[in-house]
């Protein structure tokens, strides 16, 4: 295989995985799982941006978008899970 085809295969793998992670994050109904998938999506996205010669943005996305955003969302998912457990214990209509 020539180098060009290899690069196209590489691009294809990057993009298919990115889209699959995005779909999985959006379609998962369980909050904690959705957040985990979103973090994975963000980290993969930073990989794709490194491929597109944007290392500055890739660093920022890995640290801010996936890392801190993910931490904030995980805290929210934990809170949501606890509160739904509390309401399930009470009167559920």
């Amino acid at each position, binding site marked *: 295989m020539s180098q060009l085809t290899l690069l196209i295969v590489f691009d294809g793998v990057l993009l298919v995985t990115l*889209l699959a992670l*995005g779909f999985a994050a*959006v*379609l998962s109904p369980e*909050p904690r799982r*959705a*957040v985990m998938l*979103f973090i994975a999506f963000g980290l993969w996205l930073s990989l794709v941006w490194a491929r597109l010669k944007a290392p500055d943005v890739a660093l920022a996305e890995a640290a801010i978008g996936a890392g801190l955003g993910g931490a904030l*969302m995980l805290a929210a998912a934990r809170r949501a899970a606890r509160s739904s457990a509390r309401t399930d214990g009470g009167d559920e209509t």
Partner: protein
Amino acid sequence: MLTAQFLYGGAGLVLFALGLWSFLVHEPLLRKIIALNITGAGVFHVLIAIAYRGDVAPPDPVPHALVLTGIVVAVSATALALMLGARLQDAEEEDRRR
């Protein structure tokens, strides 16, 4: 035209539409926020794809700087939205207990 530019930009547009769909269709606040973040990621992705100018030419730094600013703003908006949602939840629970 660069094939890579079209492919990566197209993926960004798919992410944009996907996030918008999820934002409109799904009910829970956390899912809506994840959807909005994916929409934003799609927009950033298109910008980065436009900035890419092949293996030889250096990439355009102006969209890169825009995306960097956008990432920080998106995270601060996400944090504010999540905290607002938490307060909303607390208020609802208080109402239910009464």
